[in-house]
């Protein structure tokens, strides 16, 4: 390469790499996102084919799995015919049907990645990964460690490579075995391209080589890239960059080769006999891929058509009660749908709403005695406010099993002789009568029930950690108004309005953050529920709202609550009421919640094969609770598994449907939002949040080994930031098998109740939002409010859509179904 211009531009390649590496943050900040976010600028199916060809991912079910679904009637023949008819033309249906059903395709899950770097093994008989990775991972993990090691990394403030240089200079041993790598390390001018020149030689191959190298351990590389971009994901901060990691790894590679061959070996690029296909060369789409995509369409619409038919079926109109007993605001989370149904069932005068669980109040929350504050709103927001918890006394119980001193030599000696025996008793107790312990992540512990919160700002000049403590009155009013208008709750307020956040409880669960409220950045929503209630109860706020046309009568009280989705328990906040009638009303409502929760627990229990759903409902509920504190229970709850719908519209659309906890539901009234302004805000949040959850489940389910985290049983906690198999393994981003095994990999179908033209304009407001729909990562169907006609979005416009004929079964007793079925259930019409 004598050209003055270089083909290899380090900055671009690193940027490119970061784009493709997994973007999962540290475990404490677990946030769902589209696993293949790097491909989102392409059409969904093109992205599937390309990522599978390039990286070797399995991006859909296999032909065999689809055929099995067809045999199991999970894919309807009518829908399949319809899909083939639409896509391939009537005359070709039978030919394609043969291909889908019979033709012996062979799956192939090998990609182009690693083809170049594999030549070290083939041509030089050197296994670089085996020689380098165990040390590299251990060293990286020590550097990034957040509090496992007793002897912390001795030096880190100066950055990764500088630290390595510093250590190399001041040690009796060395990182390297031969002098050359050491010399290169100390030469500060040494760049990636210099090292690649030694290793690879041929500049056209540099980028491919770095991709091969970093994707041989995507977990660690991804983590490094995330820490570089977003350092606050670590409590104990570290400076590191992907560039530094690459340099260090290249040096280790050179050293390994020097050790084996001396300093005279030919660079890899010069020994290649045959040409290696460039990683990002255009991917040829074959018939096999087309077959997979047709199957996926048929699979998706087999379910969607049921839902759509269910929604447009004419049902008896429930009579609207003019005297509402209470209203309850739940999170849009798919896990809340069934609870809402039970609450409405048990008290027909009650009304429920769905809205993102941070209740439109964005802030950082700092618990009493906490050293840090945590974000409790959707991940992309950057709040300017801080809410502090104030209590008189708080006790955090300790567990010596996690204490450092048990690992030290002499204390360890003392302990094994003494409380070591206590462990045996603890083990006995924990196995035979599981109970809450300091090791449990318990949602109600997020905030003390009797604490005070600094919701109202007293002095806007005072800042803490660069944040304003609490909200001013006008700021509160804006948030309450925004919330109420977006869900269409602007009049007819009941005496009690509950804001019910949600959280989860589990033990021995490294992915605990993924079980909490996604709209609160993976934390329970209790603080938000209390904060919004405080705001909405504030007389001055109500006065401002009145001016803006929302009249909340003084007889209405907002109350915060937290629903524990694992245990099906609820905790109410600030429920010491002076008004006795209201107090009685609250007691009555509380009973309804408690009853509804038990029924909800029963509905959930049908999925847990190790539970018998036929036993007495109270006992069953206790057993469901026990799961959340059992050390040996890898499935305390099933989280978002099976999610596949997002419904933005009135509760009227779905109140008579059984959707099997598969729908995110955002309440919305098109009548007060003819321009689509609130709709834009809803979609702007729902597409990335619900779409992200849905796609993470999709990819973790279809390729649990490469895009998911595999089975969680052998997982080992690395540096408190991630999990790996055993001690030598790469970090495993994505979801473990136990979380996704019952999930049907369907894309999200978003159903919006509004006029198609308004919706089209709304989604086109920003390119980021539009990308989700135009590239088909999320399906969109609009229900026109007047005539309930359906409009499906495709290729940039809405087309009238008619679902394939489906018979929707009516049921009146769901409980017997729950007692006998553990599989996904079809959509049912509920009789009243």
């Amino acid at each position, binding site marked *: 390469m004598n050209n003055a211009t270089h083909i290899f531009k380090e900055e671009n390649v690193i940027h490119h790499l970061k784009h493709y590496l997994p973007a999962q943050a540290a475990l404490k900040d677990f946030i769902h996102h589209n696993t293949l976010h790097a491909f989102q600028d392409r059409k969904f199916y093109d992205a599937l084919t390309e990522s599978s060809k390039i990286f070797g991912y399995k991006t859909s079910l296999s032909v065999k799995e689809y055929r099995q679904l067809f045999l199991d009637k999970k894919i309807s023949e009518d829908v399949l015919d319809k899909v083939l008819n639409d896509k391939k033309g009537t005359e070709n249906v039978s030919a394609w049907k043969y291909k889908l059903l019979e033709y012996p395709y062979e799956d192939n899950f090998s990609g182009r990645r690693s083809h170049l770097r594999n030549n070290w093994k083939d041509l030089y008989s050197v296994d670089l990964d085996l020689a380098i990775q165990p040390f590299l991972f251990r060293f990286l993990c020590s550097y990034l460690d957040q509090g496992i090691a007793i002897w912390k990394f*001795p030096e880190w403030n100066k950055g990764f490579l500088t630290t390595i240089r510093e250590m190399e200079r001041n040690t009796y041993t060395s990182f390297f075995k031969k002098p050359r790598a050491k010399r290169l390390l100390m030469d500060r001018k040494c760049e990636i391209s210099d090292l690649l020149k030694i290793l690879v030689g041929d500049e056209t191959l540099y980028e491919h080589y770095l991709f091969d190298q970093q994707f041989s351990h995507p977990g660690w590389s991804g983590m490094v890239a995330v820490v570089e971009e977003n350092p606050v994901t670590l409590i104990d901060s570290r400076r590191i960059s992907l560039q530094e990691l690459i340099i260090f790894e290249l040096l280790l590679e050179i050293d390994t080769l020097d050790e084996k061959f001396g300093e005279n070996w030919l660079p890899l690029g010069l020994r290649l006999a045959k040409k290696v296909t460039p990683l990002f060369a255009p991917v040829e789409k074959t018939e096999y891929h087309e077959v997979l995509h047709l199957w996926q369409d048929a699979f998706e619409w087999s379910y969607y058509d049921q839902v759509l038919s269910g929604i447009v079926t004419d049902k008896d109109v429930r009579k609207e009660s003019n005297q509402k007993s209470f209203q309850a605001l739940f999170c849009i989370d798919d896990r809340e749908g069934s609870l809402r149904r039970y609450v409405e069932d048990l008290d027909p005068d009650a009304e429920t709403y769905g809205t993102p669980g941070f209740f439109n109040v964005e802030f950082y929350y700092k618990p009493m005695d906490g050293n840090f504050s945590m974000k409790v709103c959707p991940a992309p927001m950057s709040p300017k406010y801080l809410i502090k918890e104030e209590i008189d006394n708080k006790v955090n119980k300790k567990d010596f099993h996690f204490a450092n001193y048990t690992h030290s030599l002499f204390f360890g000696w003392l302990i094994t002789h003494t409380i070591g025996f206590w462990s045996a008793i603890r083990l006995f107790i924990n196995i035979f009568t599981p109970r809450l312990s300091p090791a449990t992540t318990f949602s109600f512990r997020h905030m003390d029930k009797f604490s005070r919160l600094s919701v109202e700002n007293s002095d806007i000049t005072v800042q803490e950690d660069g944040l304003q403590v609490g909200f001013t009155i006008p700021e509160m009013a804006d948030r309450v108004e925004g919330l109420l208008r977006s869900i269409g709750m602007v009049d007819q307020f009941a005496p009690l309005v509950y804001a019910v956040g949600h959280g989860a409880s589990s033990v021995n669960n490294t992915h605990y953050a993924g079980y909490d409220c996604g709209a609160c950045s993976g934390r329970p929503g209790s603080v938000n529920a209390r904060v919004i209630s405080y705001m909405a109860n504030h007389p001055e706020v109500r006065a401002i709202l009145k001016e803006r046309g929302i009249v909340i009568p003084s007889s209405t009280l907002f109350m915060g609550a937290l629903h524990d989705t694992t245990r099906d328990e609820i905790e109410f906040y600030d429920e010491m009421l002076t008004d006795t009638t209201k107090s009685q009303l609250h007691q009555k409502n509380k009973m309804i919640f408690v009853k509804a929760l038990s029924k909800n627990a029963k509905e959930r229990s049908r999925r847990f094969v190790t539970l018998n759903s036929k036993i007495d409902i109270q006992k069953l509920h206790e057993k469901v609770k026990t799961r959340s504190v059992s050390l040996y*229970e890898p499935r305390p709850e099933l989280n978002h598994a099976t999610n596949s719908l997002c419904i933005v519209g009135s509760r009227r659309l779905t109140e008579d449907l059984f959707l099997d906890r598969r729908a995110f539901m955002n309440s919305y009234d098109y009548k007060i939002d003819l321009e689509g302004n609130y709709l834009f805000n809803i979609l702007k949040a729902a597409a990335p949040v619900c779409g992200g959850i849905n796609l993470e489940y999709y990819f973790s389910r279809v390729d649990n080994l490469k895009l998911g985290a595999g089975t969680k049983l052998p997982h080992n906690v690395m540096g408190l930031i991630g999990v790996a198999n055993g001690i030598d393994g*790469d970090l495993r981003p994505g979801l473990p098998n136990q979380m996704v095994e019952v999930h049907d990999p369907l894309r999200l179908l978003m159903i919006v109740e509004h006029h198609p033209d308004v919706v089209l304009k709304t989604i086109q407001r920003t390119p980021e939002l539009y990308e989700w729909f135009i590239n088909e990562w999320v399906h969109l169907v609009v229900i026109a409010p007047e005539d309930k006609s359906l409009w499906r979005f495709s290729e940039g416009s809405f087309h009238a859509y008619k679902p394939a004929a489906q018979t929707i079964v009516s049921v009146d007793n769901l409980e017997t179904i729950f007692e006998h079925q553990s599989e996904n259930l079809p959509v049912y019409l509920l009789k009243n």
Partner: protein
Amino acid sequence: MEQILEILIVWPFLAFFISLFLPKENEKIISGFTYGLVGLHFMAIVAFIIFWMTKGIPDINIKEISLYQTSHLNFFIDFYFDNVTAVYCFVGSMLTFLVATYSRIYLHRESGYKRFFNTLLLFYAGYTLAVFSGNMETLFIGWEILGLTSFLLVAFYRDRYLPVKNAFKVFSIYRIGDVGILLAMWASHHLWHENITFAKLNNYELVHEHLVGHSLFGVFISMMILIAACAKSAQFPFSSWLPRAMEGPTPSSAIFYGSLSVHLGVFLLLRTMPFWEQQIFVRVMIGLVGLVTAAIGASIGRVQSSVKSQIAYASVAQIGLIFIELALGLESLALVHFAGNAFLRTYQLLVSPSAVSYLIREQFYHFVPKHQNIETHFSKKLEYSLFLLSIKEYNMDELLDRFIWSPFKKLGNLLRFINIKNIYYITIPTFLVGVLIQVTRYNIPDFVVEIMPELFAFIGLLLVFRAYAGRRNVFVVWTLLVMNHFWTVLAISFNDNLTVDEIVFYLIGVIIAGTVGYLILYKITQLEKGVDLNRFQGHVYEYPKLAAGFLITCLGLAGFPITSTFIGEDILFSHIRYDQIFLAFFVSSGFVISGIALIRMYARIFLGPHVKRYHEVAQRSA
């Protein structure tokens, strides 16, 4: 009392055999069966121990059946029960019971559910046999079963690369321990002129009398025992296998590597204590090993940034302290220490996933950015060096590689010229020459005949090295491994008194296993159009039955206690004279390396990521 003991020992074996026939799909039956039988066994043991205490804590020795008897040798099974047994079997059965209970739900829906419980029961049977054993031979049977089940549980996720690689590593180090036991058994034959029972070792005068005049022999035996104990209990320089064994489901790691399996080296020392107690040199060595391990283990443990490896090294360091306690003669303290360490580490491993939420919460409230460590008063250079060495685990792996595995491979590679085309032309004539010399002894000077055993054993050993380094042709490797046994017989036949009966007894197992194994290899090469040993191929995915069959034949050929070859090994050793230490060394090394080579074959052909691309495999680094 004795009958009860026998029932207690047979019980887990019966449970294991029955469990093999349980329906594969029915989780409830499989785990319920295990739970019930292990639970009852635990209660029976508790009851027995109470009963035994009321009787005044007598030492019980039961001489069971003789499996093979000649004029100079009696291979018999013997059981023994004393306070050491009581503690070990109580801790073992309690933890196995708890872990079995834990796993019932933990492993729900995991593929390999039945395999897990089968292996757990076999482990438990081996453990019980080992702790109840009354002589080295019986102990060795249990010991071997533990080695095998460890391999199987580390490689539980057999379609991934790392578990299989690490399982093989664990097995290899266990095999090093086996050389120790084999040589210790051989030397004991010559010291005692019988298969000495542990009960007899308690006779101070007897031991003393035998050691006088044979002090070197005594030291040799003790050192071999120490090597075995070090390998099994992950002491220096073998420590690095322990954290790497944490590849299976967490409960299996907890019970095996947190608690029971890893304390078996300690058990061996406790059992043979009356013997080595009288030798100051040996006690110093045991203490030294313990001291070095405690120091190194603690320092490596301090830098571990993953929960499981931290627990593993903490445990290693504590076992180092137990070794010191033993060297000081503090037997009871060591027993208490064992039990406490086992309970603590098991529990810590079982709750290890909770470390994330617990420690993060802890940090949230108590984080102090500037830390104070005891290390801070070190000079910077010393601090960095120690830190780096600890991260690198004091290069223990490289040490083993450089001094043990690499030389083997190099020797083997020298013999690469032996291939499928010439293997029979080279080895058979050489072997026949040997037989001819043995039969005729015609005109051959005595001093030449004298070195014949060593010569042929060495040839056999070299061929095992060749097999160990073999990469391409599975038939060459297999043939070499089968023939090793013939070379061994040939070598030892130059010594006196080896009868045809004994030879047949020994070789019959070899011939059966060798033939069946060859057929399985033939079948799989037919089905797959060739297999090699260059990489893991994962054929168990498609041929689980062939894989199981091949594993059994490998075990048969490796002298695992399933065929007469196992006893035959002991017989052959008894014919090695006490002055033929090289011969003993060659033969035992041959057994050990061939065992490793056999498991390597099994792993490479049947385990690891499947070579075929039409279904998913995990990343290699995963």
